[in-house]
Structures are given as C-alpha cells and as structure tokens.
C-alpha cells in the first residue's frame, strides 16, 4: 500500500484545495478516487496497459538535469479545469501530492504553447501603427439622407406639370473609425471585419469582435507564421482596439 506524502492540514495540498471553494467538495471526491486508483496502479501518468486516472493523466515532459533527476512528476485532471500534480516514487512506495492547480483561464481547451504566446506577446508589444490609420474618437457612420419635399397647408390635388423630384442628398463624411475599419477589413476581406463591426450594437460588442479576431489569429499562429497581409490585419486590429478604448 502506498504512503501518502503532502496531505493533511497545513499542507500545500490543503492550501491549494482551499483556493477553489466553489469546487471544494468535488475536488475532495475526485482526489479520493484518484488516491484509490493510484493505490491500485502506482505509476506516474499512464503507461501502455496501465491506464492513468482519466485520459489526461501524464508526466511533465521535461528535459535537462531536473528531468533526469525527477522524471516522473505528473498531472491528472480532477475536474474540467483543475489537476492534481503528483509523483509516485516506486522505490519508497510513496505518492507525493504537490497540490491542485487550475488550467489556462482562457478556457480554449487547448494547451498553451508558451513560446508561441511569448512570440505573439512580443509582436503585440512591438507593433507600430501605420500613419494612415491613426486611432481617433468614434463618429457617426456614413449615411445617405434623402429629404422629401414637405407639403404645407391643404393638399392640392390639381394636376401639376411634371417636375423633377426635389431631393437633397447629404453626404456626411465617414468617421475616422469607419474609415479605419474599412482599411483593416481590406487587409483580409475574408474575415468580414467591417461587416462584423457594423453588426455590433455597442462598443463592448465591437471590442468582442476584435477580441474574437485576435483569438482566431492566436490559433492560426500555432500552425504557421502570419502572411504580410495578416500582420497588417493584426496591426489594424490593435489600432481599432486603441481607438475604442481611448478615453
């Protein structure tokens, strides 16, 4: 039978469980199942023919001196967003419980690639915007207003000579934000950014559209580097974001 190290009051495990008060009972239940499972199959992660605790039970893949000294430190899901970090030491027949920790808060369900995140963060941080797309305050969008002739007094039904309809078209100048949106949209028309922003009913929804586009770009950068037009698109997104959040 395994001996359990790192459990008990005042342990790191207890402290980390206390952080998640809303899931406390669930954690305790799942942790009990986990201990019973590991007691029967005392291995780090999962091995061929020896399944781990759930599908996600696996070792950290680490290299270097640390990896060679403690190669088995593992993590297994207890809930959809929490994992136990542990190490089964077969020599001493013990299991070390390091704590319960949450996953990526973004909730994408995909494991983060730290290097790529850093690259992306660096790109955002180093962005310089085109002088032609200066962020400015929001203004009214383009509208074509047709003014109908206003009749006064009683209607006159007498036939009148045919006259061209008097109409006045007032062309208001597009707001800088609209101009900028169109320009960013032109960098990558398939994304329909301008249409999405038009459909947004508030500034919050516009920000959500921009965030959605940034998240999409984060996903595709995991597959390949961005093309020049896509990089322009990203710069444009940040310019739009700055314009919307400018006080």
């Amino acid at each position, binding site marked *: 039978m395994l001996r359990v190290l790192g459990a008990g009051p005042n342990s790191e495990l207890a402290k*980390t469980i206390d952080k998640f008060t809303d899931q406390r009972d669930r954690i305790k239940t799942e942790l009990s199942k986990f201990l019973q499972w590991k007691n029967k199959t005392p291995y780090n992660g999962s091995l061929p023919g020896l399944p781990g605790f759930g599908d*996600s039970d696996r070792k950290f893949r680490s*290299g*270097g*001196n640390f990896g060679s000294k403690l190669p088995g430190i593992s*993590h297994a899901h207890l809930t959809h967003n929490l994992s136990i970090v542990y190490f089964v030491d077969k020599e001493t027949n013990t299991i070390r419980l390091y704590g319960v920790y949450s996953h*990526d808060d973004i909730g994408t369900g995909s494991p*983060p690639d*730290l290097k790529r995140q850093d690259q992306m963060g660096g790109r955002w941080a180093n962005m310089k915007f085109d002088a032609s797309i200066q962020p400015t305050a929001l203004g009214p969008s383009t509208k074509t207003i047709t003014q109908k002739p206003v009749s006064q007094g009683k209607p006159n039904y007498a036939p009148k000579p045919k006259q061209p309809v008097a109409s006045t078209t007032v062309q208001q100048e597009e707001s800088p934000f609209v101009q900028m949106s169109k320009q960013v949209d032109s960098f990558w028309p398939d994304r329909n950014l301008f249409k999405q922003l038009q459909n947004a009913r508030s500034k919050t929804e516009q920000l959500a559209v921009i965030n959605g586009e940034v998240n999409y770009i984060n996903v595709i950068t995991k597959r390949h580097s961005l093309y020049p037009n896509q990089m322009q698109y990203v710069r444009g997104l940040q310019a739009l974001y700055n314009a919307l959040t400018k006080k």
Partner: protein
Amino acid sequence: MKLNEISKPSRKAIFESLCSDTEQPFTTVTLQEIAESISKFDDSDPGMTVDEALDWLKNA
C-alpha cells in the same frame, strides 16, 4: 547549475524545466506555484496511509 541543484533542484530550475513542456495545460503563473510547491516539498514528512488520507479528505 550548482552541484546541490542536481540532487535538489532550485525553484527556478524546476520552473524552467516545467516550462519546457509545451503541451501541459497550466499558465506560467501556475507553473511558478507548482515549481514552488515541488521545491519546498518536505522530504521528512512521515506521510499517512491511503486510508488515513481518505479520512482526512472526508473530514477536511
């Protein structure tokens, strides 16, 4: 790396090692917490049996 880090890696060494796994699900901040927990782990802990641990969990 210092000699004593081979037998007992520092928090930084553990953190860097955890970060080298690009398929784990944790954020950088969480990896720092995990590294700290691993580095501070009390080797002298006598531990408890699984049944005792289950009792503790039940009553915690």
